[in-house]
């Protein structure tokens, strides 16, 4: 690292003292120009962050490590280096050293907020969890929320205000903004433009509107590359104005999804998944009840009594309390039987988790779905002629009519407005409105047609009508439609200020770049899917002096010294008894009764709708499952997350069906040249079973050039093909095999179960005939009960176990990232993943079954099974993995010498090995995200799922101190905690009242590979399908 020039502060102070008022600012600017300050600042903010992909730094680091480890080898027992304790000078009251604190906050994506609880150690946010009190979360969250904490610590974040690429200061930027406003004010605002993403924050909206009132000439544009344009246009078609649609899947027995992936993305996906899953928890208790609990020692009072404990109860945080049991599982003894199951029809071109849960998945090209919707709509009408093109329509229509008021038709975000209009019409026709569907005003502060809005802006910029533009996030240069050529237009504007987390593609073109404060660093407010407002409260002061949109707008509005905290508070001042209200809101994470009221609207009869011309190849643009629209490109956890559908990491690809692949004479990993509307892009192929023929899905968000160390140059930029005329894709795609071969890094290479009964499936009818279908092999032979010469170990006290309900799991993969965040699991990079060395402790296996044009899709999360007869324990030469008194399979990193025998002998292959030093011991900022209660593993040791032992210990210690037994639901492993559908249950099997014990008593309960007699503690509940008999036989 280069020598830091001494910064002569005295000189600078002298200059500042001599300066007053505006001159003061001026001299600050000059100051920012002086080269010693430049040097100082550059060094201060220099990016000295290595990266798992960056060989140079790795090599350097390994040199150090190698040396020290060699030393450790020579001298058997090395002396510990001296360590310092640095106490507070003045210790905050609520703070207990060594204990975490929990804060309610909220994160927004596409303007829709999800309430969250953030864990903080010594002022470091380390883990994000859902807020049970938030209607859009109910305790769950998805992997974007979970991974957001890593983004906050991302060393690649913009770390200083920069002016044309040179380090500058916030004060200087404020001056610039002020002057921009002055310039615009002269022309009462003409030429001043603000470009934001979708805004639902009441405060920000109020600020902007106020600003526009002052400067009527100024304009506010919004653009979201993967927003809800179609939904709004659709509702405008149907109702004459945009409305916000809210579904109630807990009321729906029949669901028709028109290319809607409502279970894994879009507003309300978490709560929708929960409602959907609750309708699928089929329960039948079998006669044999779980083993009776060993009698607990005397003088030890029985029973639950989980305190809604103070934070000191380890993980049972103030806002959390006991886990919310699904309605089926009640406190008394055993859960009542439920043998009803909703039925879902999904019509979609490319596989989604929702499609995977479908009882009938109808594969159509995206453009054919409108036609299908029309057919269905007519079929619902009186005396409709049976559609000759779509066989199933008639049956589906009958099914829907049989469930008037208890059915729902959902249209997908990528479907054209007309489909949405049709869906609205059908729901009305079926009397679902007010029951399974309700409408409210839009949650957006200003629901404009964003595509049009951006087009206007670009036009104006080209026409030179824009003097200064303030862009608040969104990275439009990267994400704007290709045909608008936004970058070129932007260059025509002479004042370009841009607020964002990273120095991304847009930042390069901005002449002022302002580092944005992460949501965990800032105050704000934002609306949930139903309009409920949450206060976003910071857990930490901005790491890199970031600012919020509130502060930027405030500066524009001539209030440079207002902080976001003041602004948000001010916006809610009118509340009666403000202080109480504020405290309450911060504590709960939601503002009482701010959900938008339902409104009455009636859908017009939909336009007869000329169905789009259907010929040739079709292209479909989708946000990437893992990194969405590209804004998450620099997040290692998400890049390395195996995408639910194809288990691919670190890449995007052109998904095509096997048939189409044959037609194009390509196979997976071949390069395919796509030509669409005169633009070409060469993308590697992924042959995806269940994809529509003559249709190609490409995912947006990859091919970033200024994402950061992690995201740069990963994958292919599909935005290059995406135009404003066809933002969701369409026909007219030309594709041909291009030369060359590409290598994907996938975590699962085998697509089928090879005829092994890993995921056990039955239809509802079969299940009713034989609830214990899981215990039978083909030709109805029950699995033999295995015997052992040794007496079973009697588990006194606790006996931890887990169940995973395959009928509830939608494969959303939130558990994977939750585990990664909780357990300090390293990111290893594409090359290592390709080698088969990914580190995730819980994986979600994905299997296809049936014919390859439209297979059934099954998900199976696989954590460590914690076998009672664990094969791994037998073979470890140093007893680094052994069994605990409460039945956990313990893995002790510091004892492990790394023979990898345990992994070889593990039939479930759930063990992960640090083949090299994967944990980043070098990047300072990344140390902040680590969970202090979990060892950071070093090179050469084995690791695996521990059932989140750190959580178990914390609660156990607490309960021991309170001299009581741990109550059911007090301990929740990270995976179970994040799971939107509560498919994962954890608890004490010795307690027959516990949820997990009740689930293990279910008929559907089975263990994976039980013929090996490993006796897994993690068991599965069999998957059920509820096909429509009419279609099934047809």
């Amino acid at each position: 690292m280069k020598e830091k020039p001494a910064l002569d502060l005295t000189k600078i102070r002298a200059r500042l003292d001599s300066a007053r008022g505006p001159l003061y600012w001026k001299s600050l600017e000059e100051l920012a120009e002086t080269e010693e300050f430049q040097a100082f600042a550059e060094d201060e903010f220099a990016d000295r962050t290595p990266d798992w992909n960056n060989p140079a730094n790795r090599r350097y680091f390994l040199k150090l490590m190698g040396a020290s480890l060699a030393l450790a080898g020579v001298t058997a027992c090395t002396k510990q280096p001296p360590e310092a304790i640095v106490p507070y000078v003045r210790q905050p009251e609520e703070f207990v050293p060594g204990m975490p604190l929990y804060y309610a906050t909220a994160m927004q994506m596409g303007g829709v907020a999800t309430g969250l609880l953030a864990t903080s150690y010594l002022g470091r946010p380390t883990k994000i969890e859902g807020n049970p009190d938030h209607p859009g979360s109910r305790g769950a969250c998805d992997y974007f929320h979970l991974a957001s904490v890593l983004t906050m610590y991302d060393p690649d974040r913009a770390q200083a205000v920069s002016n044309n690429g040179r380090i500058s200061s916030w004060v200087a930027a404020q001056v610039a903004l002020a002057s921009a406003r002055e310039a615009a004010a002269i022309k009462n605002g003409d030429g001043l433009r603000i470009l934001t993403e979708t805004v639902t924050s009441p405060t920000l909206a109020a600020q902007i509107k106020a600003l526009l009132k002052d400067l009527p000439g100024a304009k506010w544009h919004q653009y979201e590359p993967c927003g809800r344009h179609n939904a709004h246009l659709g509702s405008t078609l149907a109702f004459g104005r945009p409305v916000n649609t809210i579904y109630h899947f807990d009321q729906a027995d029949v669901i028709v999804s028109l290319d809607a992936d409502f279970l894994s993305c879009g507003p309300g996906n978490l709560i929708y998944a929960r409602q959907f899953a609750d309708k699928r928890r089929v329960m039948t208790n079998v006669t044999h009840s779980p083993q009776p609990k060993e009698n607990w020692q005397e003088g030890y009072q029985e029973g639950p009594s989980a305190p809604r404990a103070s934070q000191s109860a380890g993980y049972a945080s103030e806002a959390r309390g006991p886990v919310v049991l699904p309605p089926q599982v009640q406190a008394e003894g055993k859960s009542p039987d439920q043998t009803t199951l909703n039925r879902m029809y999904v019509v979609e071109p490319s596989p989604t988790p929702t499609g995977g849960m479908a009882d009938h998945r109808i594969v159509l090209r995206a453009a054919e779905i409108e036609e299908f919707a029309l057919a269905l709509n007519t079929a619902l009408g009186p005396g409709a002629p049976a559609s000759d093109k779509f066989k199933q329509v008639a049956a589906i229509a009958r099914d829907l009519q049989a469930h008037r008021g208890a059915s729902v038709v959902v249209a997908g975000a990528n479907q054209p407005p007309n489909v949405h209009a049709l869906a609205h019409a059908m729901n009305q026709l079926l009397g679902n409105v007010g029951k399974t569907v309700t409408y409210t005003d839009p949650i957006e502060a200003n629901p404009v047609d964003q595509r049009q809005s951006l087009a206007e802006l670009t036009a104006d910029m080209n026409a030179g009508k824009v003097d200064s533009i303030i862009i608040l996030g969104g990275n439009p240069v990267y994400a704007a439609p290709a045909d608008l050529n936004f970058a070129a237009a932007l260059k025509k504007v002479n004042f370009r200020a841009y607020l964002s987390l990273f120095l991304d593609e847009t930042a390069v073109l901005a002449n002022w770049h302002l580092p944005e404060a992460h949501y965990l660093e800032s105050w704000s407010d934002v609306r949930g899917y139903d309009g409920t407002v949450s206060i976003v409260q910071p857990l930490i002061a901005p790491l890199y002096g970031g600012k919020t949109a509130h502060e930027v707008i405030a500066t524009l509005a001539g209030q440079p010294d207002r902080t976001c905290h003041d602004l948000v508070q001010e916006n809610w001042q009118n509340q009666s008894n403000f202080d109480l209200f504020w405290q309450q809101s911060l504590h709960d994470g939601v503002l009482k009764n701010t959900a938008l009221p339902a409104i009455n609207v009636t859908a017009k009869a939909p336009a007869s709708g000329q169905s789009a011309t259907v010929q040739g190849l079709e292209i479909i643009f989708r946000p990437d499952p893992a990194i969405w629209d590209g804004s998450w490109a620099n997040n290692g956890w998400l890049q390395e997350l195996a995408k639910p559908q194809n288990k691919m990491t670190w890449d995007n690809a052109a998904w095509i069906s096997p048939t189409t692949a044959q037609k194009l004479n390509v196979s997976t990993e071949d390069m395919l040249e796509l030509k669409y509307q005169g633009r070409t892009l060469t993308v590697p192929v992924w042959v995806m079973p269940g994809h529509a023929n003559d249709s190609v899905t490409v995912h947006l968000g990859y091919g970033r050039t200024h994402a950061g160390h992690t995201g740069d140059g990963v994958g292919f930029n599909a935005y290059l093909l995406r135009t404003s005329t066809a933002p969701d894709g369409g026909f007219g795609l030309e594709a041909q095999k291009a030369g060359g071969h590409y290598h994907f890094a996938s975590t699962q290479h085998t697509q089928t179960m090879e005829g092994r009964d890993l995921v056990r499936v039955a239809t509802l009818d079969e299940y009713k005939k034989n609830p214990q279908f899981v215990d039978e092999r083909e030709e109805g032979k029950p699995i033999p009960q295995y015997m052992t010469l040794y007496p079973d170990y009697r588990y006194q006290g606790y006996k931890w176990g887990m169940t995973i309900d395959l009928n509830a799991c939608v494969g959303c993969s939130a558990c994977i990232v939750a585990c990664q965040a909780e357990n300090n699991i390293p990111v290893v990079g594409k090359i290592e993943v390709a080698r088969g060395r990914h580190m995730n402790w819980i994986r979600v296996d994905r299997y296809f079954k049936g014919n390859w044009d439209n297979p059934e899709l099954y998900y199976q999360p696989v954590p460590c099974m914690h076998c009672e007869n664990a094969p791994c324990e037998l073979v470890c030469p140093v007893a680094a993995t052994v069994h605990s008194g409460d039945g956990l399979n313990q893995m002790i990193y510091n004892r492990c010498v790394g023979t990898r025998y345990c992994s070889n002998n593990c039939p479930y292959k759930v063990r992960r090995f640090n083949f090299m030093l994967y944990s980043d011991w070098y990047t300072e900022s990344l140390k902040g995200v680590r969970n202090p209660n979990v060892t950071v593993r070093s090179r050469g040791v084995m690791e695996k799922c521990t059932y989140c032992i750190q959580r178990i210990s914390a609660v156990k210690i607490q309960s021991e101190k309170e001299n009581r037994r741990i109550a059911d639901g007090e301990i929740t492993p990270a995976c179970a905690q994040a799971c939107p559908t509560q498919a994962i249950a954890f608890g004490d099997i010795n307690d027959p009242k516990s949820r997990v014990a009740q689930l293990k008593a279910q008929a559907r309960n089975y263990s994976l590979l039980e013929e090996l007699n490993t006796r897994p503690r993690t068991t599965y509940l069999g998957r059920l399908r509820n096909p429509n008999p009419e279609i099934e036989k047809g």
Partner: protein
Amino acid sequence: MKTELDEQAIDPGPDKIIAPGFTNATVTDKIAGVVLKPIQTTPKQWWISLFLAFCLMQGLMAGAFWLLYKGVGVWGIMIPVGWGFAIVNFVWWIGIGHAGTLISAILLLLKQDWRTSINRFAEAMTLFAVAQAGMFPILHMGRPWLGYWLVPYPSSMWLWPQPRSPLVWDVFAVTTYLTVSLIFWYIGLVPDLATMRDRAKQTWQKVTFGMFALGWRGSARHWARYQMAYLLLGGLATPLVVSVHTVVSFDFAISMIPGWHTTIFPPYFVAGAIYSGFAMVVTLAIPTRKWFHLEDLITMRHLDCCAKLMLGTGLIVAYGYMMEAFMSWYSGNPYELFMYKNRTTGPYAFSFVMLIVCNILIPQSLWSAKVRQSIPRLLFVSIVINIGMWLERFVIVITSLHRDFLPSSWGMYYPTMWDWAVITGTIGFFLVLMILFVRVLPSISIFEVREVLHHLAPHMLDDGKPSPSPAHGD
């Protein structure tokens, strides 16, 4: 004193274990001569091969350094294939290390006189092979510097090795084997070292040999003690021949992976070990006897016997393969069945096919005396068998692991350049040791050959004089 035999030696053919015309004196001259002859007269091939072997050895040095520096990740291993070349090589080398003890111990007890000329040589080979093998268990660990945790010692953690793990048994089995072989070999050397001491011209040779000769004077008492000790060690070593590879096979048999979890492993590993051991003996004996003109002491008879042993053990191995196939069908276990299907038709089928060709088909040619008694053919077959036995371990380790129970976690193992560097490197290391050995120590047991000579005396000595006692000559 020099004999004309020194220059070119005549192989007496497959029925004689020693060429005619030898006297105690000439035997001693010849063998000692190889060691004591002045450095300039060392055959050129010896220098060349030493150089080549040394170069090869550098692969090991580089590989080991890079491995310790960066971690086992430099190899191709991954999940599910947690063991790769390292373990394959380990088992292979241990196997090779079996011939020596077998010859010395078992054949000694069986009073097979043909063992005499090759036993010393085979024992050395055993030691060096086991030395190679010994490196791998350490190298393949994630944290080699903690390898001593596998050894029971009173630690401040109050922890001991986990006795149920075959890896711990390995530690004992291999170290025991190494120690016993070493002592056995050394004891056998003592009388010859004495001979060397007495015949050496330069003082430093006298002293060095002298020190290791432990003051052997060849008195009757010495001989009596010696015989007893040697016999006892033989008895001690005999069970080891069986035990070591049995224990090694437990590494696999104890586990539950289809293709590993089978009871036939112990016998079939032991047979395989001897198989490869003799193959290696032959591979090394042929060049050695050529360079140092020892055809008259290491005769066709010896090679022929080795060849027959290879044939025999080869058939046992073949039986093992058949049993694996049969059991995978007979057990009715779908995983076993799949394993075998995958082994024979899966992505690694090539290795299986080559294995069958190398270990079963080609060795059948040993039925014919033409092959057994033709040096080039025999050399070819023995090398093929060495390769075949390496492939056997490859097939067992990799193809069993890469596709086990859950299809979701199946994967492919691709060795990296460092995998190759290490295996070739150990071969280099092994050869270096071997080549040095044949030059600096009597690679044939002088006194034992004399003993044989003594037994055969009447027919052997033309001049009808009673042969001198096998004691220390001249």
